[in-house]
């Protein structure tokens, strides 16, 4: 098998706070393969964004990568010098943030913002006077590709002149303008209405197919994962609790948290089926006991769960962090 595009092994990221050390990411391992879409599911605070801020080299004090490795195309990224990281971020990996409103600069036109990226990384653009014209044309092409009508006329608009869906598209256009091998989309549709969400997700899917790039789709919605992702990793309290091919994980979840998530949302086609909340709350990430982090909320907990539970493969392509992973329910 060929090497995965991105390979994270035992990544640990912690933040020093007045209350103590917050272990936001604690032993996360995952692969993103060439051309695939990987879904990352978890509730707020589970470590989704911090994991990928780590990949982007954007962990700043008081945060610190405490250990583990992040390899992209075989090259170690942990400890990479800032200059090399900047080149990588522009050219090979791009990330869109949850809130397009705040991540676009409100004081600059969208044209300025996309041209900045293109001019900084467009090594194949001509030099001299023709460069700006070529970059402008590529900006218009990119905006057209993501479905912004009359793109040439909108280059001079400011972000506030765009609707929420259009701003999210603009951010995707900027992220794609360096033609990355990997797009990390952090909750690209959480703030959007369902009809616009469907447009944006279908856009990402079709661009992935056209450009052959890999996508990491961070979301809290298992429905989004089911429809758009080949594989999924479920995060809970800074750790991956389950991963595998999406269809298998959804039809046969082996971690009680995954099963609990699936039972806690109403399904449009089965509205008569009662939903069951997961009782309790996500644990505080300071001073966690050594056992399973889901234990206080788990209906299946037993004595063995008080000892550390390893994240382990239990079938081809599937892994979970639970003492009961081997038993289908």
């Amino acid at each position, binding site marked *: 098998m060929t090497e995965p595009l991105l390979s994270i092994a035992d990544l640990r990221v912690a933040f020093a706070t007045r209350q103590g050390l917050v272990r936001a990411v604690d032993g996360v391992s995952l692969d993103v393969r060439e051309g695939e879409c990987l879904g990352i599911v978890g*509730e707020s605070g589970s470590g989704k964004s911090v994991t990928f801020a780590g990949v982007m080299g954007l962990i700043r004090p008081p945060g610190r990568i405490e250990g583990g490795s992040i390899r992209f195309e075989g090259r170690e990224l942990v400890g990479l010098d800032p200059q090399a990281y900047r080149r990588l971020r522009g050219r090979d990996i791009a990330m869109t943030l949850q809130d397009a409103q705040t991540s676009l600069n409100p004081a600059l036109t969208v044209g300025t913002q996309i041209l900045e990226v293109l001019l900084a990384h467009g090594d194949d653009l001509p030099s001299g006077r023709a460069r700006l014209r070529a970059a402008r044309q590529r900006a218009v092409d990119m905006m057209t590709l993501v479905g912004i009508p009359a793109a040439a006329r909108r280059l001079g608009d400011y972000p506030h002149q765009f609707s929420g869906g259009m701003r999210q598209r603009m951010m995707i256009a900027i992220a794609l303008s360096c033609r990355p091998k990997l797009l990390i989309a952090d909750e690209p549709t959480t703030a959007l209405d369902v*009809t616009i969400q469907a447009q944006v997700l279908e856009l990402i899917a079709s661009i992935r197919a056209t450009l052959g790039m890999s996508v990491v789709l961070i979301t809290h919605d298992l429905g989004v994962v*089911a*429809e*758009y992702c080949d594989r999924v990793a479920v995060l809970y309290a800074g750790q991956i609790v389950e991963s595998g091919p999406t269809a298998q994980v959804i039809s046969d979840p082996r971690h009680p948290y995954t099963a*609990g998530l699936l039972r806690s949302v109403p399904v*449009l086609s089965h*509205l008569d089926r009662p939903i069951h*909340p*997961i009782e309790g709350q996500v644990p505080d990430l300071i001073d966690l006991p050594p056992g399973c982090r889901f234990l206080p909320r788990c209906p299946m907990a037993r004595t063995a769960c008080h000892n550390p539970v390893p994240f382990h493969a239990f079938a081809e392509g599937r892994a979970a962090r639970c003492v009961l992973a081997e038993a289908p329910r």
Partner: protein
Amino acid sequence: MSPLLDVKDLVKHYGVGQGLLGRLFGAPPRKVQALNGVSLHVGAGETLGLIGESGCGKSTLGRAILRLHEPDSGSVTFGGVDVTALDTGGLKAMRRRMQIIFQNPYASLNPRKPVGEILAQPLRLHRLAEGAALRERVREMLEHVGLRAAHADRYPHQFSGGQRQRIGIARALILNPEFVVCDEPVSALDVSVQAQIIDLLARLKRELGLTYLFISHDIAVIGYVSDRVAVMYLGEIVENGPARAVLRRPYHPYTRALMSAVPRVDRADQQQERVRLHGDLPSPMDPPPGCRFHTRCGFATDLCRSVAPLRRQLEEDRMVACHHFPEPAP
């Protein structure tokens, strides 16, 4: 039997700034048509689910019913009383019977007051309890919503999102209202916590005999909690009826598009083709002529582009405002 709440032809336009040029050259003031003649009714003990995209006027409707925003015209009748005609005193008395729960529990709770004080305030304002009786009522309400008496001394920031929403619910219910507008009560919460709050609201409804107007943009949540649903688009109700009937067989193209856009864990085995909806919601300042949905509707005809469809009353308490569905209007 007459419904507990009866809303007729409610209209609410917000005036928005004209801008410098407008003022200089005397352009007419611009208006956002947030509610454009909304009618609906809710029976005692019923949950009416209100669904629609953000900005379509759901919150405005919830607030106009309680007169937190003054409607421009139309009527709101609650328990036989014309709410729109009440003076300040009458309105204050009515607020005991009609309450609201907000989407963002944090923004709606005073950060400088302990929770016990936040809950005591409405009781004091309405002179319903004081001293030991007041403290007892606060304790009882906290326990009702799944919190503990000891929580009364803590401040809102010391609670998680789900617990804050429980506080918001306790504050709305402490006056013993009959009717509660739940405005996106679970939208800001994590998935596993959403179900806790949905369960809580259902239990309180049973135990206290409440009637809900439940607002959400999540059609599965609406389908799960509601007896009847109303679908809103650009300030108008385009379809309503019994929840199961509407969601099993939606008529209006907008309802169908909304349902089909929801990503589902079970689509693979349902093999359904997605109804695509192009473009964004048009500006409510300048709604399209004819059917307001025609700019995004795959079935629009010349008739739709020029003539607004009438509300058609169909079988089993169903209404749909469309020229062509379920079958051509006579």
